[in-house]
């Protein structure tokens, strides 16, 4: 099973450019048509399951708007941290 991940997109920085949408290998990001930022953009967000926390969206984001989290695989294998 691939690792589970998630992203948080900052409304302050996101400009709805869709570069993350085009780059995500899992195709799980889309602009959210129901939300609008203070600058007037529809921000990007996860719209379905399947994010692996690979970080590719954050690499291509020109506005460093994305924080990427990934499941700690050491926890999955029940190996103590630092082992």
């Amino acid at each position, binding site marked *: 099973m691939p690792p*589970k*991940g*998630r992203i948080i997109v*900052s409304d*302050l*920085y996101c*400009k*709805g*450019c*869709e*570069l993350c949408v*085009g*780059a995500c290998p899992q195709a799980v990001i889309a602009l959210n048509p129901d939300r609008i930022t203070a*600058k007037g*953009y529809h921000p990007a967000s996860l719209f379905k399951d399947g994010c692996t*926390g*690979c*970080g*590719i969206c*954050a*690499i*291509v*984001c*020109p*506005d*460093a*708007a*994305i*924080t*990427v*989290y*990934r*499941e*700690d695989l050491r*926890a*999955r294998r029940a190996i103590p941290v630092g082992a």
Partner: protein
Amino acid sequence: MDTQEEVIVYARPDSLTKTNTHYCPGCTHGVAHHLIAEVIDEMGLRERTIGVASVGCSVFAYNYMNFDFVQAPHGRAPAMATGVKRVFPDKVVLTYQGDGDLASIGMAEIVHAAARGENISVFFLNNANYGMTGGQMAPTTLPGQKTTSSPSGRDVETQGYPIRASELLATLDGASYVVRRSLHDPKNIRLAKKAIRTAFEVQLRGLGFSMVELLSTCPTNWEMTPQNSLKWLEEHMIPYYPLGDYKVNPAVAEIKG
């Protein structure tokens, strides 16, 4: 998901301020900014770095990068960086310049800074036009490329040929590290980041002039979506501006990336 079972894969670097930029959506100036900031964070250089901003869309780089900055007149960033570095040899000094800034009005300053082997790092954003002023032809505009000042496409018979700045500067003995990278996809962005790190390593070792040319998009003036701009860069700019290492001093080659 339990937060204790999560790791942070990516977070906005401390060397960027908490400011949203004026760059157009999807403009890869922003990618170059976050790469430089990440490298400065990772190398622990924030308290010793002084940036020199140029004139162009990146004129406000000093508002976005979270370390000391000065602002140079158009094209003069390498001259100002020379002064800063000579007065503060222990600081890490960078310039951030567009193609109009570096290869047109500032051609003399960049050539002589490289020829003198000034121990500075230059980040050169080549987007094949004058972005800030409305998309006019730059020395880097491709043959046939339409801009607001070459509406029928650049005609090399009357407007000359584009300048390949990396190849040109690489001929100078004072240049230690001169490479060209691109910001159009994740793999190339990673390679660009490595080159930015090497440029700082060169400066920290006192090996002289370093420059990383970064092929970059200008969706607004190219009149394309950000996504199509990446494709245009790959299909049109890279054939004319091949990616690669144009000058790697033997002492630089020993630095492990």
